[in-house]
């Protein structure tokens, strides 16, 4: 469970200060799907980075299962990311020199899992996103939708508690987007993930249980837009 208390993030820009997060309070229950919407530059991605421990707030606390990511040492936060948090990015962010399977294996390296086990788990993860025939392909040999599937497999192979997705369908056409959303929804249901998706796309947001809207660094929560899923 996430518990964010009065999270603020300020950036220096020129001589002025940008308040990317201006006191965010938020609780995300385990297994919840939260979508965050809002105009560009109003703090959506910054909030996602706080949730993933990729950045630290200027003030406030970001607790994950009772541990404050904001005050933990960097190595400890890195361990949390390695074990408990999966990321999906708009631009897929696959390593261009590694095959689909190796890209998925990359996520298991920090967990100290041996090569054989890594390989086996990567194959299973790729099969779960429908890419069992593409394990040896390089990212450049895959379509955008396939690349994002590899990214999802990479995020899920370590069986995280939380999946954070930043515009996961932003670079995909409508058909591929729908396929991917269906996949995400299935995985969310099957694995009991806590899923936080930043998106501009209302079609994506409507799939979530709750929608939060970021505006000028503040978050307002819209209550359930869909029936709750157990």
């Amino acid at each position, binding site marked *: 469970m996430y518990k964010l208390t009065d999270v603020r993030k300020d950036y220096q820009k020129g001589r002025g200060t940008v308040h990317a997060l201006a006191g965010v309070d938020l609780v995300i229950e385990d297994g919840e799907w939260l979508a965050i919407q809002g105009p560009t530059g109003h703090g959506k*991605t910054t909030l996602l*980075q706080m949730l*993933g421990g*990729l*950045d630290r707030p200027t003030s406030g606390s970001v607790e994950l299962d009772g541990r404050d990511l904001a005050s933990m040492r960097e*190595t400890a936060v*890195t*361990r949390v*990311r*390695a*074990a408990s948090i999966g*990321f999906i*990015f708009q*631009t897929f*962010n696959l*390593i*261009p*020199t*590694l095959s689909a399977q*190796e890209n998925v*294996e*990359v*996520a298991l*390296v*920090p*967990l100290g899992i041996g*090569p054989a086990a*890594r390989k086996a788990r990567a194959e299973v993860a790729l099969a779960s996103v429908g890419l069992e025939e593409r394990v040896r392909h390089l990212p450049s040999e895959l379509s955008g939708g396939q690349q994002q599937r590899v990214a999802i497999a*990479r995020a899920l192979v370590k069986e995280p508690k939380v999946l954070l997705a930043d515009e996961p369908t932003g670079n995909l056409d409508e058909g591929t987007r729908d396929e991917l959303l269906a996949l995400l929804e299935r995985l969310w249901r099957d694995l009991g993930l806590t899923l936080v998706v930043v998106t501009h796309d209302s079609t994506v947001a409507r799939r979530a249980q709750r929608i939060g809207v970021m505006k000028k660094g503040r978050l307002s929560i819209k209550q359930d837009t869909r029936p709750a899923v157990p």
Partner: protein
Amino acid sequence: MFFTYLRRELRRRMRQAIFIALGLAVGIGLVITVTAASSGVKKAQGTVLQNLYGVGTSATVTKSPTAGSFTRPGRNFNLKPGATVKINQLTATGSLGSLDDSAVTTIAKLNGVAATAGAVTANNVNTTFKIPNFNSGGSGGAPPGGGSGGGGGGSFSGPGSFSAGNQVTVNGVDLSSGGQPLGPLSNGTLTSGRTLKASDASSDLAVVDSSYAKSANLKVGSDVTIAGQKFPVVGVVKDSSGTDIYIPLARAQALANMKGKVNTIYVAATSAANIAAVQKEIRAAVPGSTVTTSADLASQVTGSLSSASSLASNLGKWLAIAVLIAAFLLASLLTMAAVSRRVREFGTLKALGWRSRRIIGQVMGESVAIGILGGIAGVALGFAGAAIISGVAPALTAAVGPTTGSATPGGARSFSGGAPPGGGSGGFAPPGGGGFARTAGNATHSVAVHLTASVTVTAVVLAVVLALAGGLIAGSFGGWRAARLRPAAALSRVE
């Protein structure tokens, strides 16, 4: 995963990796080549010095000649006009002053001195010339051949002639030790006959240098004439000291009018570490003496060997260092540039839970791999460079002053034969107007050596260390840059 990732990344950046590796290879190759050339030059220098100095000799003691001290055996020439004069005389090298025999024993008693040997370095001149007719009361004229002649109240007329004859270098060898003497003969390789021994000390026997023997058509059993005396040749040695004939010291002293005197003392120190102290002691014990060590002699080496030495130690060294620094800088800059291009990649890895240490290790691993490739290529280039130097380098020549080292090196010395009859004070010169080349002493020894640039194990180890250092330096810059990346900033970077 480390090696897979490393291999794939290097393959992706193959051109850049080859470029960096080649840069390092050129730097390392130059270092190896220059090191090999330097060591070859040093070896060649050692060969030259050994040839000139003799095995085991640590220093030589000489004395500068004092004004008017240059003595010649007395000769009463009958210089009547039209007369033919034959000269065959042994003359101590004019550029060296004489030292009393006692100096040899004085030096032998000093601390740190293992052995001493006195020697007389001399030149045997064999010349024939005819005095032209002399007309008293006339003006000075020049003898045939264009040499200048000064006449004080008379003039030469009629045909005169001059035969340059020959001049050989003779070394009087101290045989008192009984064993292998110090000095140039100690370095000679006996090619036929035997060398001189203690029982030959007062005999008219000679050992000749093989080059001289060939040019003079001598062999064991032949005779050489020194100061008009016949010396049977008992042995032929091959050496490069510049000495043509070795005879017992006592005979050289007698014939060169040097009884009880020597003009060179060879000294062997008990150890190389003592040479400086021994040098100081000798200077104090034999006032006015010049003590020359091999290091001093090395500094007097001139000729192409010296030029090669300067080239290797100055230009070569600095060129290699400059190229190496440039290669390191290039490798570092290109590695940092490569890291900059991979900011998003490293940010992703950090987001996936990779620790900075692992990412730094990956970057450094790639750089070290490039460094190793550069090192291997550099060693190959170094071997090739050394082989090329050995193959195409012309024979180097080294010229030094007499083995004593203290004499003024170089320069032909004129030989004045005394005043012509008639009271004139004019000298005379050989046909052609030049002075007598090598008349007054073998002032300069010239030795030809082949430069062999051999790559040593040390140079290869140095290359490996440099290659690893190059890789580590470049990798540490890149790694440092990668480690400083915050994952959020890295991920937000637009590429």
